[in-house]
């Protein structure tokens, strides 16, 4: 692995960025360390991780794929039923409406969280007064468990005894958001953003800190304003982080679970029933393990496919370090 790709894989963590621009001559030194006394790690080093991954990820995955061709309620032996579950899965309009909810939630989630996280992160990377205090406050939601967050929000959104009823009455609303399909979706989005923006903010903060200061100095001398600097320097410098953060966001939104379970329970009706929640309901509420396994298999393929697509179309593999040539 060349140092260039190391920087690409972990743009935020490249250690030598503090000094802004390492002289090119320093690079071969890194390589020499690899070729030196210590041999490259052999396959043996890989075994523990591979074993854990095999037993706890691959094996259950194969099991689930096998289950998707059976009819099983959790008791006795699964009975092979061919492609029944798969046909049902694609023929059932509920699957498609659930997919629609999932995609809407993923897309809106990304649209909501990315700008917020980006702006907050860049702001937090600066040197303003009280910056550390505010950053710490913004960071708090990330320290709370997802279930606790959902429970608290559920209480706040109670129109009768919660805050939303109180605040709502000031604006001529009854504060009842959870009982309409679009309101419930908005609540899930908002709570998700409140909870996860801090994490992405942290990523952007770390990356923004690594943008060499002389770029801004040069831009200021050339007369570029703050907005111009943001779009011409900060954003291009953060593009690797944008891709990483987006991948995590998309995969994360697709597997949002406890927020929905606690806040809306998939409701009202099926308005917030995203695919993972539907899978849970089929498997552990309806005890239809076969159809649930088919859905699980689709989710695995879909999630993997989507992250591969993001990586491919964002040119992640062809990317160079944002510090190339500096």
């Amino acid at each position, binding site marked *: 692995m060349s140092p260039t790709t190391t920087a690409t894989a972990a743009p935020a963590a490249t250690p030598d960025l503090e000094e802004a621009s390492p002289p090119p001559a320093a690079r071969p030194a890194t390589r020499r360390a690899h070729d030196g006394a210590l041999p490259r790690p052999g396959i043996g080093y890989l075994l523990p991780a591979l074993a854990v991954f095999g037993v706890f990820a691959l094996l259950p995955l194969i099991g689930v794929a096998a289950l998707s061709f059976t009819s099983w309620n959790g008791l006795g032996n699964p009975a092979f039923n061919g492609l029944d579950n798969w046909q049902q899965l694609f023929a059932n309009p509920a699957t498609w409406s659930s997919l629609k909810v999932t995609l809407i939630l993923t897309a809106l989630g990304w649209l909501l969280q990315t700008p917020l996280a980006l702006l907050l992160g860049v702001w937090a990377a600066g040197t303003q007064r009280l910056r550390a205090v505010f950053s710490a406050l913004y960071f708090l939601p990330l320290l709370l468990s997802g279930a606790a967050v959902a429970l608290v929000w559920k209480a706040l959104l*109670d129109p*009768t005894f919660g805050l939303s009823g109180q605040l709502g009455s000031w604006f001529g609303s009854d504060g*009842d958001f959870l009982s309409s399909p679009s309101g419930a979706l908005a609540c899930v989005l908002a709570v998700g953003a409140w909870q996860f923006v801090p994490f992405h903010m942290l990523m952007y903060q770390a990356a923004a800190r690594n943008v060499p200061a002389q770029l801004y100095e040069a831009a200021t001398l050339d007369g570029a304003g703050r907005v111009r600097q943001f779009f011409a320097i900060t954003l291009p410098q953060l593009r690797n982080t944008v891709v990483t953060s987006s991948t995590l966001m998309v995969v994360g939104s697709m597997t949002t679970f406890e927020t929905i379970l606690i806040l809306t329970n998939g409701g009202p009706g099926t308005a917030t*029933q995203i695919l993972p929640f539907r899978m849970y309901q089929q498997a552990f509420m309806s*005890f239809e393990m076969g159809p649930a396994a088919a859905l699980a298999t689709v989710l695995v393929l879909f999630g993997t496919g989507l992250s591969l697509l993001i990586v491919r179309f964002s040119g992640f593999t062809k990317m160079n370090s944002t510090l190339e040539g500096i």
Partner: protein
Amino acid sequence: MTTATKMSDPTRPQGSPPAPDRRTGRRGFLAGIASLAAAGAASPLLTGCSTEASAATVTPEVWALTDPVQNAIQTKYLEPGTPRRRLAVFPNTNYTQKLRIAMGTSKGPDVFFNWGGASVGPYDDAGMVVDLAEHLPRGWAEKAFLPASLGSARTGDGKLLGLPLKGMQPVVLFYNKDMFDDLGLAAPDTWDSFLRAVDRVKKENVTPIALAGAESWTQLMWFEFLAERLGRGKQIDALFRGTRGSWRDGPVEESLKYVRDLVERGAFGRTFGSVSYGSGTATALFATGRAAMHLMGTWEYTNLNANHKKFAARSLAWSSFPQMPSGAGGAGALVGNPTNYFSVSSRSNLAADHIKMLKDRLNSRGYVDTLIAAGEVPAAAGIEDRLEAKSPDPRFSRWVYDTVAGAERFTLSWDQALQPVLKEAMLAQLQEVFLGTTSPSSFVDTMEALL
């Protein structure tokens, strides 16, 4: 009972190490899922095998729901004896899932709590639960317990799958007597007086009925009681059996139209969709006079007495669900939890001992009296005098007992009686009918399509 010996895995040495502690909570649950998945991948030989940890070396387990009062009684009456049993308790949330997974991986309990109906049906289909009718003296159960309380432990072919372990919990219409008196309203025990009350109370800017619409099982109470009043028992039983056409031909659509009518009248207020029961909101609405009525199981009486003492002592009154003028049948029908049951796993190799224990103890004077003293209304027959003497609330307890004793039918809540697939679809659809995003007729279409 030799079933367990018969089914035990011959490839494993006898006296292999006992099963690990089953109360491992989330980790155990996850392990269960993992082993489920693994079981699916492995050969059928493996998935069909039974208790590797032979039950002879393990203390038999009785599984029940977490409930400090009940658990103390259960520990006292069910654990002692030979064999000594161990009570394992689980919170209500996900108990059904834990039980299913444990039974599916052959590490299930010997005696287990259930609600009857579809909560025990699949275990009967899989041959995993003992038919008590085969082991108890003929007619014993019917004499020992109120017949209406045994209904949901019975199968269509006459098996008896469990014995009542605690009180009976019919759904009752609670109302605020003070408010009704102030407004000159009669008890809401007929549909007419009920509707009058709804309209009158609304004029006072009070929500007529507290409804925790965030949880659809509370909406189900209205729907199932209306169906019971408007239809015939046979039509309801057909729903539970999954008979084709049963949702279309029965009282379902008409009941849902009544539901729509109530919603449009403003009977449940406007924000019921965000009101939840678990957080105590619906109860608080009712007890603070912001709602006039509340349809809920009898446990709400205990709940109100514990959390809203003043209100319970001064203003609380109750009635059966209003009688309908044109109802096809069902005037004496009740809905709710007839009671909860203990069933015996047919794979326990001490099943005969467990059956005898349940027979001797669940109907014993000591057990029943302890339940009464804890505020329960047990399903045991002929306990009127003891209720009067020992119940903390003799008036309410006697009313519940007499109502059940005189009931023609006591239908198990539909969310426990229906097969899980139907149940989930019904609850989601019902929520939409209440919100007006689905019509009664498309509710029926959706349900029929699942049969």
